[in-house]
């Protein structure tokens, strides 16, 4: 297996590849190698939007080798939180990196003018992108597809206008419908004058024992398609949770003012599947096809003339741009998702920023003077679309402030008690109880996917877990996911990749690790990430927890500050932090 790091310097317009076998031996790949490279490349206190801030992409030893190992990870200093930036994307990027022969890519410096990077196997070119600067993310993809080679093998990742404007939660669109969405990688691209990366390759990977490889592949493939380990993602998809969480009183509604939405049925996964779903797609290497695509047909004249847009949806965008904004129609949600796709905004942060702004507008903390006359009201989809456009291309200071995230905006305009961020990152769609809050607060990237606190809450509601047990579960997930994210697998397949299966899969590609060694690695990766976080100023003891979490009833009932503090205390103790 090729264990190379490709270094690209945009300031010097040069690149070189380096074999770093030891780095991969010790840190596996993916997020493990990623955090090590970030520590090497990013000096303490580096301005996240300066040329000195690196972008690092990594894949792991299972990418391109086994089913549902379909992700790549980006590591950077987050322009949103000022500390660890870590974001995952599916699509084909992981595969294109694998077959181009680069398990990690480090991008340094800043281009003098807009550029994009074209990688074909070992050949790296930095090309002029002046003519596509300002072009939306979807059109950029279409233009580059025409210009570049590698049909069927390549991956095209690019930013939209939001990344160019340095919106702190701008994402990077991957191929189509997938994203390095969270924590502002799009702004980092923008700060480097980097519009896109096109990558493809023709390498192949040999395995020590093809027969054994086929056996293990078959086993994991069967586990993926024939058991119920991934059933949830087959049919309605993650959006099935809209109804479930609504019923469980865990669906954030109108900026977390409520945890159930009387109109949830109108934006439920079932509603989307029955009336709008027309196609399912998959990331390369996954037989599931969880990417749900809706056809949004809207008339643009009274003479039966229609625009048809194909929009992907999932649970999180339906929460953030749907229930949390009081939007009562699937069309409305799809229009907002589509706007984020074109502008290159992270749907989750964008939705939470808008929900804060809408409540602040209701409470007169902000006025039409700031919004430029735009009435930010629940369910006012037209206003929301316009507001998103204004965030991506800010016409005044207010929209520019919105582009810096809900922590920044609420510190300036007020309403921090309902500014729904943890660790500086806008929260995900779960008001399930204390584990969800603690999980996102202490998680390395302040994401619900760091440790699935929302799922621990739901387990706790059934089985009466005490505070310590919940913390134990969070720590177990924190560590295990560090390993899984080094491979780099899709978290939807975490039930397929049991510890035993991981050991077997690694052995089939020539990497021998015991379960204990993997456990140690998980812990080590977590600690290394916290070194970076603490160095850059994150302190879980002083992190802000919005009051709103304690006011709105959750799946686990009312969450009290006492239980949250208790769990944080236990967590710190178990981690050995003072």
């Amino acid at each position: 297996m090729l264990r190379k790091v490709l270094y690209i310097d945009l300031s010097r317009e040069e690149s070189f590849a380096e074999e770093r076998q030891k780095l991969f031996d010790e840190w596996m790949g993916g997020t493990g190698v990623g955090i090590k490279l970030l520590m090497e490349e990013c000096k303490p206190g580096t301005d996240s939007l300066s040329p000195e801030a690196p972008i690092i992409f990594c894949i792991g030893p299972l990418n391109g080798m086994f089913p549902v190992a379909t992700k790549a990870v980006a590591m950077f200093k987050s322009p949103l939180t000022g500390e660890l930036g870590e974001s995952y994307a599916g699509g084909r990027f992981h595969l294109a990196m694998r077959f181009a022969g680069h398990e990690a890519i480090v991008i340094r410096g800043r281009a003098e003018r807009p550029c994009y990077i074209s990688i074909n196997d070992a050949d790296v070119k930095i090309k002029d992108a002046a003519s596509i600067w300002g072009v939306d993310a979807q059109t950029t993809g279409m233009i580059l597809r025409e210009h570049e080679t590698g049909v069927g093998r390549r991956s095209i990742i690019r930013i939209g206008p939001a990344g160019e404007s340095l919106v702190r939660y701008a994402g990077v669109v991957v191929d189509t419908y997938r994203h390095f969405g969270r924590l502002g990688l799009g702004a980092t691209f923008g700060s480097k004058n980097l519009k896109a990366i096109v990558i493809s390759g023709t390498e192949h990977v040999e395995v020590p024992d093809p027969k054994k490889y086929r056996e293990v592949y078959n086993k994991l493939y069967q586990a993926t398609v024939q058991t119920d380990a991934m059933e949830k993602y087959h049919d309605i998809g993650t959006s099935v949770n809209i109804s479930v969480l609504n019923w469980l009183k865990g669906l954030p509604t109108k900026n977390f003012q409520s945890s159930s939405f009387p109109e949830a049925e109108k934006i439920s996964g079932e509603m989307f599947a029955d009336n709008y779903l027309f196609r399912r797609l998959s990331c390369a290497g996954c037989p599931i096809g969880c990417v749900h695509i809706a056809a949004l047909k809207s008339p643009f004249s009274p003479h039966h003339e229609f625009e048809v847009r194909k929009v992907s949806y999932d649970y999180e965008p339906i929460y953030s741009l749907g229930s949390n904004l009081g939007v009562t129609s699937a069309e409305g949600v799809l229009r907002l998702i589509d706007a984020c796709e074109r502008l290159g905004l992270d749907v989750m942060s964008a939705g939470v920023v808008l929900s804060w702004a809408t409540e602040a507008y209701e409470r007169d903390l902000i006025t039409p003077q700031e919004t430029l006359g735009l009435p930010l009201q629940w369910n006012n989809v037209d206003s929301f679309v316009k507001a998103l456009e204004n965030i991506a291309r800010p016409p005044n200071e207010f929209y520019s402030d919105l582009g810096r995230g809900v922590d920044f905006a609420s510190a300036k305009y007020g309403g921090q008690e309902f500014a729904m961020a943890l660790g500086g990152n806008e929260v995900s769609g779960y008001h399930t109880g204390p584990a969800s809050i603690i999980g996102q607060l202490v998680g390395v990237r302040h994401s619900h996917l760091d440790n699935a606190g929302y799922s621990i809450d739901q387990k706790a509601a059934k089985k009466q877990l005490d505070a310590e047990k919940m913390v134990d579960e969070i720590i177990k997930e924190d560590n295990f996911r560090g390993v899984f994210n080094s491979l780099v697998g899709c978290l939807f397949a975490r039930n397929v990749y049991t510890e035993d299966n991981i050991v077997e899969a690694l052995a089939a590609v020539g990497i021998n690790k015991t379960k204990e060694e993997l456990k140690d690695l998980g812990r080590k990766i977590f600690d290394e990430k916290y070194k970076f976080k603490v160095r850059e100023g994150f302190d879980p003891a002083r992190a802000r927890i919005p009051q709103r979490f304690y006011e709105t009833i959750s799946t686990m009932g009312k969450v009290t500050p006492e239980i949250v503090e208790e769990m944080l205390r236990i967590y710190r103790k178990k981690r050995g932090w003072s």
Partner: protein
Amino acid sequence: MEIQENVTGRKDADAKPAVAAPTKPKKRRRLKVAHPERCIGCLGCMFACSRIRQGTASLQDSAIKIQTRGGIEGDFVVVVCRGCENPPCVRACQSGALERKPDGRVVFHEELCSGCKKCEEACLIGAISSGKEGKPIKCIHCGACVAFCPHGVLELEEVTA
């Protein structure tokens, strides 16, 4: 190499030879792209092909290719050998590396291949591509990919030679 008398390969039911036909009609298996519109783009077939036939993980070593037209917002296209009755790739091959068997199968003799790529040019649908060492990767209609298509896009059919 056997000389093909009927170069069009077309079967003519009325033109039966005077002598008795062989008792058992020759048959071959052929890959069929039965439902391309059901493809989700997982590339499972491509990986199956390189894994099972070459023992590698590769897109390049696969005889079947999934491509997109206009990105994945557009449609998927399955590019694979359709097992022509009168294969242009065989006719284009100067070195005898591609041989059409009496039952209609085309077999590839790697040791005879000069790597001239004439077969690639001859195939209008682009079903032959070069793998490692510049030798063509040719579908043998084994059906390895069929088992790894989660949506029944591919089928293996039996056709009379």
